[in-house]
């Protein structure tokens, strides 16, 4: 039931009709609703698995770190764990605790990043500015601990490359205290700001059954009441000894995914404090052989986006026989198609953003064909603007909230 002329028009174009560019999403619309959605991935396919076969394990490690810059430690640790298992290495406890520390700091930076991106997608740009400013606290901590803001390279086969000093521990605790205060503020915003709740509630719905059937992982799955977290179910590093809660929500929607992520931030702060309080003494690495004996291992890791899986097979040389990587986003892609079935086009930006996708954020092109004979290609930015405009037209507008948010901060 759409009243054609009253509604915001979908700005199809401005691409030349003869343009044949690969588009990430192909949509068939009926009016403003998505009838069908196809997803085309592979833009960032670089041939990493093949490249790993031709490189030594150490070089392959540098490559796996760069599968995704946001969860670089996730991929690196997942890979390192598999190789250590094949090689039969006993990683010192201190190193495992340091790995957990960096893992949680990465989760914190990633979830704050996501909060900002989600704000941006719905037009709540002040949220982007504040969360990313707060995120700089954890970026500085990571830079101090590992030498780099991103791509930390803390792992080596057999342990970690850098130790943590008492002074650094104190800095981390200070940073965590500040972040916890800020996160409580964001939880307040998420649970009390009517505009935000209206915008996110019942958007991108994925029922518990569908989430199970489609294999949704990470916060996406947990927001549909799937209590799965590799840190709890299949503990790795030092997680078996660290108390924390797995955060779930029964909202089944983008709002639930928001609650899960801010809840996980609070748990991460607890984990970091536990790690620093209970950091065992001892060496930070054992010596690893250059050649890894023949064998295979399947390593799993709970990245900020969900379950990351690495399968490694070794053949007795200094180069892997096979490295197979399944990043979490790949497991959640089908869930997105389901979430957008028969929903408004205007929901697409936040629904896609809510799975926290690990493909490039800026170059997604959307190809659209609608039932009025229109067809063309949209840039993501255009879709985002259409979405914000559509919701403004339907009474959900972040202009005022952006202003009051800013005023509240200055007070």
């Amino acid at each position, binding site marked *: 039931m759409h009243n054609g002329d009253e509604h915001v028009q979908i700005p199809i174009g401005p691409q030349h009709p003869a343009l044949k560019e690969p588009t990430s999403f192909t949509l068939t619309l009926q009016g403003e609703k998505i009838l069908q959605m196809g997803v085309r991935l592979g833009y960032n396919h670089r041939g990493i698995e093949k490249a790993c076969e031709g490189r030594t394990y150490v070089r392959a490690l540098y490559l796996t770190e760069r599968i995704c810059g946001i969860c*670089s430690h996730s991929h690196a640790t997942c890979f390192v764990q598999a190789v250590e298992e094949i090689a039969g290495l006993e990683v010192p406890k201190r190193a495992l605790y340091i790995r957990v520390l960096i893992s949680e700091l990465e989760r914190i930076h990633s979830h704050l990043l996501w909060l900002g991106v989600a704000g941006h997608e719905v037009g709540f740009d002040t949220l982007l500015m504040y969360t990313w400013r707060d995120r700089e606290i954890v970026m500085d901590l990571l830079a101090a601990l590992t030498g780099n803001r991103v791509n930390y390279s803390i792992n080596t086969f057999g342990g970690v490359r850098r130790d943590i000093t008492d002074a650094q521990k104190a800095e981390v605790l200070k940073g965590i205290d500040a972040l916890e205060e800020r996160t409580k503020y964001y939880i307040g915003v998420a649970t009390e700001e009517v505009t935000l709740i209206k915008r996110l509630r019942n958007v991108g719905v994925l029922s518990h059954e569908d989430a199970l059937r489609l294999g949704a992982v990470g916060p996406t799955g947990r927001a549909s009441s799937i209590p799965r977290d590799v840190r709890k179910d299949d503990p790795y590093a030092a997680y078996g000894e660290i108390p924390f809660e797995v955060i779930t929500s029964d909202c089944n929607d983008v709002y639930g995914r928001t609650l899960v992520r801010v809840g996980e931030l609070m748990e991460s702060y607890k984990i970091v404090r536990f790690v620093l309080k209970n950091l065992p003494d001892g060496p930070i690495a054992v010596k690893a052989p250059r050649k890894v004996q023949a064998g295979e291992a399947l390593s799993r890791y709970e990245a900020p986006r969900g379950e990351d899986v690495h399968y490694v097979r070794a053949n007795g040389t200094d180069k892997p026989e096979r490295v197979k990587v399944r990043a979490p986003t790949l497991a959640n892609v089908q869930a997105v198609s389901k979430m957008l079935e028969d929903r408004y086009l205007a929901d697409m930006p936040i629904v896609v953003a809510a799975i926290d996708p690990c493909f490039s954020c*800026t*170059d997604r*092109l959307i190809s659209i064909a609608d039932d009025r004979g229109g067809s063309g290609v949209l840039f993501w930015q255009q879709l985002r603007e259409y979405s914000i405009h559509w919701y403004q037209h339907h009474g959900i507008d972040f202009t005022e909230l952006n202003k009051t948010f800013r005023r509240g901060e200055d007070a």
Partner: protein
Amino acid sequence: MKLIQRMVGWARRKSPWILHFNTGACNACDIEIIAALTPQYDLERFGVLLKGTPRHADVLLCSGPVTRQIQDRLVRIYEQMPEPKFVVAIGTCSCSGGVFQGCYNVKGGIDTVLPVAAYIPGCPASPSAIIDGCVKLLKSLEEAEAAPPAKPSKNQAAPQAVLAPKT
């Protein structure tokens, strides 16, 4: 004519509008580019504005090595940008292919496909390096504007006026 040129040049330098495009990167440089636009680094104080389409952009910030899939798209985006336009390669992968050199499906750095005005290395390039690179680019535009155009010698083809605005 010259005054207008100088004004347009000044406006362009004082407020370059940028388009950020990921050509196959791991996202590390992308998040550092966005971080450069957020309060701690605040690229916007240099008048830099992030735009959504190539038609409004002066500067194309590229991150990532060029993959086969994205190559044509990258060229198309560049062609849609109005003159004068500048390409900045952000991160080691954009400069040379980085860690992905030799991977199938990776062509190499941005300059295998487009003329690059500035290279900002780093893995990823930190926001301070990105700001430094942008400021240097803006400065070189200023200098190019101030310098008299070089007289082409008889035997030389006229150099491509990449940095000077076309009349």
